[in-house]
């Protein structure tokens, strides 16, 4: 309120608008055959996952796969240039809604609880953003999906009635597990591998939250993992920081996709 000169109600409503944007994106992703990006590289998978879930034979359980579906769906909408809420980035926009919409029925979260969940993710995210970075071009995907996953894990623990200390353990576990993850978008698009990285960001957050709620501790504390993430990011070569020149972007198939979309010289 001090920073934005807005009232309590205005701030609450703004976060509710963010929540509505997330809900709309998730709903859009499962309309008809799903949404598809202009390049056709990604799309339609959220619908496939939904059908698969409905058959009731998922290996990792319905809650987990509901989270994955919502994460993938959100990033499919993003790749299709639909409207999303950056959490903390557009490339990582599926991870946090993935977790929130997976646990909301099980934990019976009210609308107020869900908005509160987003404020909690935001505060953890501010610590990362102001002490390390949240841009793939600066720190790789660990700074984007890694940060989002850790933010979601911390908020999920709180929503489930865990202690603040357990939230911190969930946060550090989740970020530590994705340390070193590179940003290697094929053809410089936010499609491959970004969409599926969000599926893993959500799953990783749920695992980290469950570990913390089981009172499993993470010996390296959250502040130190954030610092480690920053240092790892600064040592990443530029090929692996959102240039589309390394990782899966530099595989024969990745290069072939790039050439097909943008022509050989670019």
């Amino acid at each position, binding site marked *: 309120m*001090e*920073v*934005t*000169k807005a009232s309590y109600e205005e*701030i609450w409503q*703004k*976060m509710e*608008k*963010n929540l509505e*944007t997330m809900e709309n994106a998730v709903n859009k992703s499962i309309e008809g055959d799903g949404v598809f990006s202009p390049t056709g590289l990604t799309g339609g998978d959220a619908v496939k996952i939904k059908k698969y879930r409905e058959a009731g034979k998922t290996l990792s359980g319905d809650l987990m796969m509901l989270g994955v579906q919502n994460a993938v769906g959100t990033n499919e*909408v*993003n*790749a*299709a*240039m*639909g*409207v*999303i*809420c*950056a*959490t*903390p*980035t*557009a*490339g990582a*926009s599926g991870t*946090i809604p993935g977790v929130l919409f997976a646990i909301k029925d099980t934990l019976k979260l009210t609308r107020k609880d869900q908005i509160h969940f*987003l*404020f909690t*993710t*935001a*505060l953890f*995210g*501010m610590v990362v*953003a*102001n002490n390390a*970075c*949240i*841009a*793939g*071009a*600066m720190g790789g995907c660990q*700074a*984007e999906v890694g940060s989002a996953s850790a*933010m979601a894990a911390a908020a999920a623990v709180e929503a489930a009635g865990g202690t603040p200390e357990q939230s911190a353990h969930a946060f550090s576990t989740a970020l530590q597990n994705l340390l070193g993850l590179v940003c290697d*978008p094929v*053809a*410089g*698009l*936010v*499609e491959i591998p970004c969409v599926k990285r969000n599926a893993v960001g959500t799953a990783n957050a749920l695992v980290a939250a469950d570990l913390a709620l089981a009172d499993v501790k993470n010996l390296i504390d959250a502040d130190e993992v954030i610092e480690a993430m920053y240092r790892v990011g600064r040592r990443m070569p*530029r090929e692996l*920081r*959102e*240039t*589309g*020149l390394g990782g899966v972007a530099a595989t024969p198939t990745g290069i072939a996709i790039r050439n097909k*979309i*943008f022509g050989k010289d*670019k």
Partner: protein
Amino acid sequence: MNVYTIGRKGGLAMNVVMKEKKVVNYKSCFDVIGPVMIGPSSSHTAGALAIGVVANKLLQGLPKKVVVKYYESFAETHKGHGTDFAIIAGVLGFATDDSRVPNSIKIANSQGIDIAFVEEAGDSPAGHPNTADIYLENDQRSIRVVGISVGGGLIKVKHIEIDGFSLKLEGSLPILIAISEKLNLELELGRIFKTYNVEINDSQNLKKDGKYLYAYNLESKLSNEAHQELNNLKDIANIIIL
């Protein structure tokens, strides 16, 4: 270019609260959860759009000509990340969630705006992988802005050229720029800052050809009342709030 800085101590710094502290880039929850935006990338689309908006505010009108130079990650991925249409959307003054964003280049072309994108091979002059250098021109003026997109849609403005002035900045927003031929503008601004408790992190004063430019890095957004008072100075100064 004949530009020099008037020392901070001799000017406004005496009248307002100055403090030594770490500049926190992400000041609000909504810098992290948000913006609501058209994809696909917060840094390369929403952030790029925000740099375009800075250019739009500096020019204060539609350009006839736009030249955008990209560095590093922006140079490599601007096509895939939609950076081109995002910057032009910003130059046209669109918001991040405006449905016209993906069609901005077509819209600009239909208004006769000449657009060029240049991929620079060298390192960013601003020392950041997501750097865009935007030049705008119309019959009234030309401006240049070098912005960096630091992640999650947030930007910093590192360099501005306007009305013959050239200034380097730390770059965190909000930034208030005031240009006037009247020296007493500084007193007026100081009064408004004091009245509305506007916290200044840093300030710069430049003088050139009988004109004064004041640039202030603000700790937080201006209240509506402070905004209104600044607007009342329109007759004696060109006030730009980034």
